[in-house]
């Protein structure tokens, strides 16, 4: 088995937890397999993706099974675990050509935004980005309308969750599945003499 240069392998070992690849160990795995095998894996993976995307996938508007770590993260950051699906609307394309810049609009269209009843904050979290938090928006009654548009990065195909906290104490959520053709970290591949394992991006 032909291995990558050992110094490269050690370099990756220190960075696996925060690299752009899969959070747990995928980068190390990619650093240790031979080039030929890695290529085979990529080709195989691409074929698998092609096979998957060839089947028409129904748009998944929400996920009933939120990962446990996400529920824990939300409980710590937002101090609430009682999220009800509804009210908050997340508009994103079902499929994105590139994960570098995916348009996103979050809103709570039916909130009157009065002193008594307004949206306090909206939080966007992803499931498979190296860092799950995306943005936190804070509103006041003077915002008039709880609707924000921005462009975000997605490292790969994944679920995007959106949580809204209201001034009356209720909490709402929604989720959306976004397919990403080329992940936000894919520019590593295009570097000349790329020293990084080609694991980011598609999966």
């Amino acid at each position, binding site marked *: 088995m032909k291995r990558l240069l050992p110094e490269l392998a050690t370099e990756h070992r220190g960075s696996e937890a925060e690299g752009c690849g899969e959070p747990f160990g995928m980068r190390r795995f990619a650093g240790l397999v031979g080039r030929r095998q890695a290529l085979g894996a990529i080709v195989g993976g691409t074929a698998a993706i092609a096979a998957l995307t060839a089947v028409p996938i129904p748009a998944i508007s929400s996920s009933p099974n939120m990962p446990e770590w996400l529920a824990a993260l939300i409980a710590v950051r937002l101090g609430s675990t009682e999220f009800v699906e509804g009210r908050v609307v997340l508009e994103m394309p079902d499929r994105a050509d590139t994960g*570098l810049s995916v348009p996103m609009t979050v809103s709570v269209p039916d909130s009157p935004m009065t002193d008594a009843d307004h949206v306090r904050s909206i939080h966007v979290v992803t499931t498979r980005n190296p860092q799950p938090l995306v943005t*936190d928006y*804070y509103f*006041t009654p*003077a*915002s*008039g309308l709880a609707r924000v548009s921005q462009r*975000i990065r997605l490292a790969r195909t994944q679920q995007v969750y959106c949580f809204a906290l209201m001034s009356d104490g209720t909490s709402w959520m929604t989720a959306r599945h976004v397919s990403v053709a080329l992940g936000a970290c894919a520019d590593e591949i295009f*570097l*000349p003499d790329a020293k990084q394992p080609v694991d980011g991006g598609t999966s």
Partner: protein
Amino acid sequence: MAEFRIRKSVPETVRKGEVFEIKTLVTHPMDNGFMFGRDGKRIPRHIIHRFEAIYNGKTVFGADWHVAVSTNPYISFHALAEESGTIEFRWHDDNGTVHVDSVYIQVI
């Protein structure tokens, strides 16, 4: 770092009580700390981590940005027209600087 350029868009005049849209776009690399440069070294994190809009001295909208916000961050949000005055935008950079810009809005 390239020059920090700001583009903003607000309606010239709005009616009192009307909700109007504010759009801003700034040039910023938003380095997320996961990328590697041509020398093979990791590019350190350098993003704008907070954005605020202050309308006549009152914060009407705020946002915390994390590394998943795209390069050259664009944002569109809304405000309620109460009286003529300035809307101040503040972008808090990781390197400690606060980029400030403002726009005058006339309420009729």
